[in-house]
């Protein structure tokens, strides 16, 4: 591991080994072995393994056997529940309904503006554009659109389950 890389010294000063293992393992895109997490988190492999096992017990990560090797990846349910909780803490039922409407309106605006029905179709449009600046703009919009659909799905889950999930839940009218 390269302790001389920019920012590593400050990162190690500001965080514990557990913080770093959790942060790295919690943001990987797919299953990774202990060696990868240890290198990226700047901790010894034994330390990483111990923290990873604890994070599996906490349901932050999932452990899988792939080709005979233990691999760790984020539990998508954990991220979803965190986002759900943040939404319920920030918005009441009416606020969630308004947020849903705003997100849907944004999606409809992009669909109308670009004449496509999905971020995947928009991404194909980006690949066809000959203008570099336009390609980048379209690609960014496609990414934003995909992220918005993910968030919209969780907002709808929050609305459907508001009474059950809300901390102080007077039942919504209607």
């Amino acid at each position, binding site marked *: 591991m*390269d302790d001389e*890389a*920019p*920012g*590593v010294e*400050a*990162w190690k000063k*500001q*965080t514990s080994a557990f*913080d*770093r293992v959790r*942060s*790295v393992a*919690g*943001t*990987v*895109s*797919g*299953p*990774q072995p202990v060696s990868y997490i240890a290198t*990226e988190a700047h901790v010894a492999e034994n330390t990483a393994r111990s923290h990873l096992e604890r994070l599996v017990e906490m349901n932050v990560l999932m452990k*899988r056997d*792939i080709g005979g090797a233990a*691999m760790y*990846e*984020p539990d*998508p349910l954990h*991220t*979803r529940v*965190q*986002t759900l909780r943040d939404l319920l803490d920030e918005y009441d039922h009416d606020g969630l309904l308004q*947020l849903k409407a*705003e*997100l849907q309106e*944004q999606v409809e605006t992009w669909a109308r503006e670009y004449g496509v029905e999905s971020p995947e179709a928009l991404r194909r449009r980006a690949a066809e554009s000959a203008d*570099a600046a336009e390609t*980048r703009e379209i*690609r*960014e919009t496609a*990414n*934003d659109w*995909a*992220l*918005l*659909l*993910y*968030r919209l799905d969780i907002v709808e889950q929050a609305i459907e389950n508001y009474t059950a999930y809300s901390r102080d839940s007077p039942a919504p009218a209607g």
Partner: protein
Amino acid sequence: MSGDDSSYDAAEASHRALRGIQRELERHPTISTVRGFPSGEYTQVGAEVAIDRLDTDVTEGTLTVRWFAGGTSDDRPTFSFHYSGENGDFGWHHEPNPHVDAWGHFQERVNPAASYDYEPYTFSSVNPTRVVWEVMSVLVSRLQSE
């Protein structure tokens, strides 16, 4: 390498990365406030740089972060950490750009009417957490040299 893509969702992975980036920025000593941006949508992360904690004449600045995981879990992510303030418009990006060969690059323009200048930049890692601390290190060095 991660291999099995049966449960991979690029939007979910990207959202998770943005949450991780927000948490790391909140930990950084020279960031004062961090928020999902735009409000309600959370497709980017915005952070106010705590200029008063730096040895610099710069008075204000904002860092805007975009991150999108690849189409498969093995694909490279595209991301940008872009700073804008009264005396600067520059950032570290990792994405295709016809003005520079490498995905990793630094871009800067001297004023809003000018074109960006580009130069290759090699990130030591493309893990979201690591990139936050790397970019903050080079950003702080740059602001303190102003």
